[in-house]
């Protein structure tokens, strides 16, 4: 068995390890060999490295954002305009006092704009200062305009953001695929995408149709295929039935034959299985290895009643050998790590069980991701659920090539998680909890809503949009939101006391 194992492992490794480009090079030696991936990366990386060296030499004490901006500018100038190192160093030195001025200028308005815009402004302006050499007055002017533009683009009071969000998500939604199944992303796994998935998310269903998890591994596991595979095996839920090739029912009992390939793939040995079965109540002490066949075991039965024997066989097949309940499959996926550029392994599972998977050694508990919003809500809390929902909705839309602004989606997920639980959008959730009878009746089950309201004597205060549309009043949205505020008592007092202020 061990010989076989090594052979197979060896094969797999040779498939994974060498970089494809390198391998091909010696074969196609007739023409000039194309540059390898490493060479290309080297070529692109060099200007970046030089830029970072210049920045650290000339302006080492500037804020990180400024340095980043300058670095980007230098890299671009080097590649596109062919500046040399010395010229660039000179440019940065010239720009130094301007940069200082810029930092001061941007710091002044730090409190007036959100963090993201502050960062962007600082980064982009630093780049521009080095590249085009703007003057001090221009810097002040640009910063001024940026702040003004930001303030002008804020949502105005009375803007019906909910309606706008609904339209912005609804319209592209009509272009989504209606097909339930799609094979994309992970091989050997189907993932529900498109409209069905969006409906699932918005309905806040407890169990997604295709639950899946993405598990990042801990430092010592993620670069090691063997360790990654071991972790994956520990997670995958395996029953006796999964590793069996054939079951025979004889006079002596149930004889179970195993598939050696599957056993090896799951990292199990016949001895392991016997040990597990001996502990199990269903099989207890009647398990023993079968003589003459190393890949088979025998389970003795006492009765001769065939139905009972069949029942027992079925129970045996369901015995858990290892893994975590709910995880049907665990596949290892290769990825390039963004920060280091190294190849790392990630486990993708079919089926989810966040609570248990977090405890598995080797899995990075901080980065466990599942597409089941309900599980996230129960294990990590409402805020994490909100974030998962946001990502899932956004990814579902993006995957279909629909570019919906995050703001609409953030409003949607905030509305869904407002009460501390994930509520669906619909008559059992957000709409169902609206205070207005008419608003509820416009949505679904009109008659039932009206009858119930009439029976219980509900009052509609006509504060929302839908109810005012029905009644034919001006909807309190936009400019109509402005109301005259008056205290009659206060007014009376003022009039009687001779008016004025």
């Amino acid at each position, binding site marked *: 068995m061990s010989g076989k194992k090594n052979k197979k492992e060896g094969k797999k490794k040779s498939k994974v390890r060498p970089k494809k480009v390198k391998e091909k090079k010696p074969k196609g030696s007739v023409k000039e060999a194309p540059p390898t991936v490493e060479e290309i990366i080297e070529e692109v990386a060099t200007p970046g490295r030089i830029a970072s060296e210049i920045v650290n030499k000339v302006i080492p004490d500037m804020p990180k954002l400024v340095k980043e901006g300058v670095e980007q500018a230098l890299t671009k100038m080097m590649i596109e305009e062919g500046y040399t190192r010395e010229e660039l160093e000179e440019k940065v030195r010239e720009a130094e006092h301007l940069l200082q001025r810029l930092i001061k200028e941007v710091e002044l308005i730090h409190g007036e704009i*959100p963090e993201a*815009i502050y960062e962007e402004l600082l980064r982009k302006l630093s780049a521009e200062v080095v590249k085009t050499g703007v003057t001090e007055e221009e810097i002040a002017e640009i910063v001024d305009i940026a702040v003004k533009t930001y303030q002008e683009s804020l949502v105005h009071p009375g803007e019906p953001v909910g309606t706008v969000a609904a339209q912005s998500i609804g319209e592209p939604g009509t272009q989504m695929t209606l097909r339930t199944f799609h094979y994309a992303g992970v091989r050997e796994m189907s993932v529900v995408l498109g409209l069905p998935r969006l409906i699932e998310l918005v309905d806040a269903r407890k169990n997604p149709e295709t639950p899946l998890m993405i598990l990042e591994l801990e430092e010592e596991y993620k670069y090691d295929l063997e360790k990654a595979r071991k972790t994956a095996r520990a997670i995958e839920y395996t029953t006796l039935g999964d590793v069996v090739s054939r079951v025979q029912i004889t006079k002596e009992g149930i004889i179970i034959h195993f598939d050696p390939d599957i056993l090896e793939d799951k990292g199990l040995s016949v001895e392991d299985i016997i040990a597990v079965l001996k502990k199990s109540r269903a099989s207890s002490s009647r398990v023993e290895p079968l003589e003459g066949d190393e890949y088979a075991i025998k389970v003795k039965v006492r009765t001769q009643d065939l139905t009972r024997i069949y029942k027992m066989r079925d129970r045996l097949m369901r015995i858990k050998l290892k893994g975590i309940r709910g995880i049907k499959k665990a596949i290892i996926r290769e990825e390039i790590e963004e920060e280091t550029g190294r190849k790392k392994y990630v486990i993708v599972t079919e089926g989810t069980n966040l609570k248990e998977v977090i*405890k598995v050694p080797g899995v990075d508990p*901080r980065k466990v991701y599942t597409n089941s919003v309900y599980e996230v809500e129960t*294990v*990590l*809390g409402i805020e994490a659920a909100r974030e998962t929902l946001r990502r899932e909705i956004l990814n579902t839309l993006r995957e279909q090539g629909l570019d919906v602004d995050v703001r609409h989606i953030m409003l949607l997920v905030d509305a869904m998680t407002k009460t501390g639980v994930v509520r669906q959008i619909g008559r059992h959730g957000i709409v169902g909890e609206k205070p207005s009878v008419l608003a509820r009746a416009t949505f679904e089950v009109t008659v039932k809503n009206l009858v119930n309201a009439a029976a219980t004597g509900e009052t509609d205060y006509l504060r929302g949009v839908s109810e005012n549309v029905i009644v034919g009043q001006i909807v309190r949205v936009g400019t109509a939101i402005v109301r005259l505020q008056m205290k009659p008592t206060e007014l009376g007092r003022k009039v009687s006391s001779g008016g004025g202020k």
Partner: protein
Amino acid sequence: MAGSKRKTKFSVLEHELVPMHEIVPPDEALKILRELGLKPTELPMIKVTDPVAMELGAKPGDLIRIIRKSPTAGVAIYYRYVVPVITKK
């Protein structure tokens, strides 16, 4: 295998998806409510049984400040009012 414990217990606060949560001291909470012009019941809520609220040891009536990383604003501050669990359905 699944039952094996790791050396230090993992806290949900460390998870990538969980933003920074903190309990706001009562006097500061009052000030914030006044500033926002809201009654506590008008705020978004968080259950006492929420894993994060339990980790912080929050009690009903507390105000929790959430510092989110936002794709549009960089950093966004959000408040949730801790509420007892209402058994519905």
